[in-house]
């Protein structure tokens, strides 16, 4: 089960979080009250050149001191604060959500750490794998993830989602079946600018996990979805593959189709499968990934999970259900269901 929804305004006109909350709540049948979450892009214009690190702290003493130490080693904290929340009757508060606006030092770049983003990736992996009681769950620029164990409305009200205005939104309503329902396991999963919402199960997880771990990613969140964020970071950012190619690596055409392609295309697709076979994802899934460049949605190769797309001018919607899209935008047009493995890409106008 699980319900997902994604929205982009290609002109970067912002939308507040109230509609996305309503659309997600419409899919409550797809959830179990064990987790919901939202991510919005463009929400921190005042700190647009800082990395916004959202961290769950179990307590504000020991884990926070350790995280502060790591951050001070790698850069400057420009501003930090508790993420504003409002207690909800049905939502049990387990962690304190905190945010840092952080700038890495330029002179820490060198060797295997080739860029600012490598520093952030390293910090996220180190905190999540080695500090008990601290979990970085969002680490991109001018964006932020908000998630918890609870129903969509409760989580939205807890974080006052309607107070944020973003030009990309993703949201997720969770029905966990293969991992525990806990705050860290709620979607979206994020690393740097990449945020992922997912409906399904990744049966190739063992292979994908071993693959990304070879590149220094540590899978610590007890659920298969986090590996998707790492695969996008590895293939999209580090290997610099175009988004379409990343999707073709994760959900490639069948060999039968590849064999029938014209030579240049055949060679390309064969090369993708040979090189990125371990990144291929199997199992039933529908996924929407956002980054600072736009959003992309796609399903598994035989389409075992639903995904619906709708458009209205510069707005693109991707969701598990048409009805959820209609809540966001009653005027929506061009509603369609993409083919298995077909990437649906929404980018900002140049």
């Amino acid at each position: 089960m699980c319900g997902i929804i994604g929205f982009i305004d290609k002109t970067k006109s912002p939308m507040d979080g109230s509609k996305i909350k309503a659309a997600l709540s419409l899919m409550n049948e797809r959830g179990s009250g064990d987790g919901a979450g939202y991510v919005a892009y463009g929400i921190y214009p005042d700190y647009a050149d800082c990395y916004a690190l959202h961290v769950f702290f179990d307590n504000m003493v020991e884990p926070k001191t350790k995280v502060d130490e790591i951050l001070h080693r790698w850069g400057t904290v420009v501003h930090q604060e508790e993420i504003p929340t409002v207690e909800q009757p049905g939502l049990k508060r387990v962690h304190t959500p905190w945010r840092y606006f952080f700038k890495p030092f330029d002179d820490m770049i060198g060797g295997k750490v080739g860029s600012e983003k490598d520093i952030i990736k390293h910090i996220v992996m180190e905190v999540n794998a080695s500090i008990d009681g601290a979990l970085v769950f969002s680490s991109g620029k001018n964006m932020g993830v908000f998630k918890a164990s609870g129903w969509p409305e409760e989580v939205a009200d807890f974080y006052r989602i309607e107070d944020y205005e973003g030009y990309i939104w993703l949201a997720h309503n969770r029905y966990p079946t293969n991992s525990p329902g806990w705050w860290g396991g709620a979607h979206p999963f994020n690393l740097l600018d990449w945020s992922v919402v997912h409906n399904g199960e990744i049966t190739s997880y063992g292979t994908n996990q071993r693959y990304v771990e070879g590149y220094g990613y540590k899978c610590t969140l007890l659920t298969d979805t986090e590996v998707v964020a790492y695969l996008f970071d590895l293939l999209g950012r580090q290997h610099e593959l175009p988004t379409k190619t990343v999707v073709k690596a994760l959900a490639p055409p069948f060999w039968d189709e590849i064999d029938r392609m014209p030579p240049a295309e055949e060679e390309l697709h064969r090369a993708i499968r040979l090189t990125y076979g371990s990144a291929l994802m199997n199992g039933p899934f529908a996924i929407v990934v956002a980054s600072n460049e736009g959003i992309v949605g796609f399903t598994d190769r035989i389409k075992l999970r639903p995904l619906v797309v709708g458009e209205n001018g510069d707005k693109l919607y991707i969701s598990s259900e048409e009805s959820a899209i209609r809540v966001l935008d009653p005027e929506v047009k061009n509603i369609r269901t993409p083919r298995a493995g077909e990437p649906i890409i929404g980018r900002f106008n140049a």
Partner: protein
Amino acid sequence: MSLGSIPPKYKVTIDREQCMDCGRCIENCSYGTFRREGDKILIQSRKCTGCLRCVSMCPRDAISLTENPVDYRSHPLWTREAREDIIKQARSGKIILAGMGNASNLPSIFDRLLLDACQVTNPSIDPLREPMELRTYIGKKPSKLEFKKTEAGDVELATKLAPNLKLETPIMIGHMSYGAISLNAHLSMAKAAKETGTFMGTGEGGLHRELYPYQGNMIVQVASGRFGVNVDYLERGAAIEIKIGQGAKPGIGGHLPGEKVSAEVSRTRMIPLGSDAISPAPHHDIYSIEDLVQLVRSLKEATEWKKPVFVKIAAVHNVAAIAAGIARSSADAVVIDGSRGGTGAAPKVFRDHVGIPIEGAIASVDQKLREQGTRNEVSVIASGGIRNSADLAKSIALGADAVYIGTAALISMGCRVCGNCYRGLCPWGIATQRQDLVDRLDPEQGARQVSNLIHAWTLELSELMGAAGINSIESMRGNRDRLRGYMLDEGILEVLDVKNAGA
């Protein structure tokens, strides 16, 4: 003789009521168990190897064969075998030879690994109705793809792929040389490899003319003896394999007794008629990884960098580090042969006591290559005791790209694992060069049986993958998450990096 003789291992009896006196048992037993004396068929049970040829060919089901009741006082430590080996060696003063794979009573790790299947939330895939992809490419892969912009502004692939073997199923047939086995056995397997879209190894025996039509599906081998190796031979193979070691006998070379070196074998292997073909334990030009690199590169140079080069090693304690070295040597694939691998002839003590099981070897090689960032660039082939499609699936889940089968292919042609291959009298026409015995194996029929086996395992592998919700072999490879250990100790589970059943 103060030691007396060893009691016979098998007891052969003929039900005289049933017997029609046709004499087929006499004809079929190349070991001379049966003979006629007057109007009676006499049996010498001592000569029986348990190859079961007579039982299979008797039209009246008149023959029964049992393991002889133990004549020794039973003892948990001083087993019958332990005592018999001592008696044999007390008599001969020689190394005891044995054929086929490890026959000691060690538990199989494969049997204590369980595969996964999905229920409800994650639908299983029905291979009859949905595509199931087992196609596997063996060879070097780039670690990442590079693209360039054309003048028109389009993006174009800049990476050139290295030559790879395209397998329609991840099952290949391992190297068994012409000489050790018969031409008809080779022909059967070669035809089957072609028909099923896979590959077979020539072994270190050169390539017989009659196999030329199948050369596109053959992997030629370069072993320490360099028998039958010249440029023509290298060019005929689809890939080249350097054999450093073999699972059944790590650390020692090969030995083909002179009796098996017939005129054809002598011509194909490029050795004198009737002479023993002894490949030394080491390659005499390889004493370091640098030397291996040179050989890999010279073989590539000799074939204009058009063919993948594999390196085969036996699974030994340090196998992961060795494989990591090989991965960096320009080799395109590393073949790991586990301690249950078969052989024509090996000193028994090596066969049963040297090396490690393939399960642990594959897991640790896969792990090491990942740590070093080279796993995606080199293929890993597992061999040594793959008995069924479950072993195949488990090998892949532990990290292999494909497997080599050897003994299983022989069994599909008739072999009953009697373990007497080194004597050259194989009654099934497999491990022999005696023409009348060789003729017993019809290459067409043999090919059908081998390809049936490969086909059947391929179907079963698709079903296993479908049950686990996986429709491409790439997602099975190294997928330890789809395995659980049952009654394996913590140490082994750690090496395998597999969770316990129920976890």
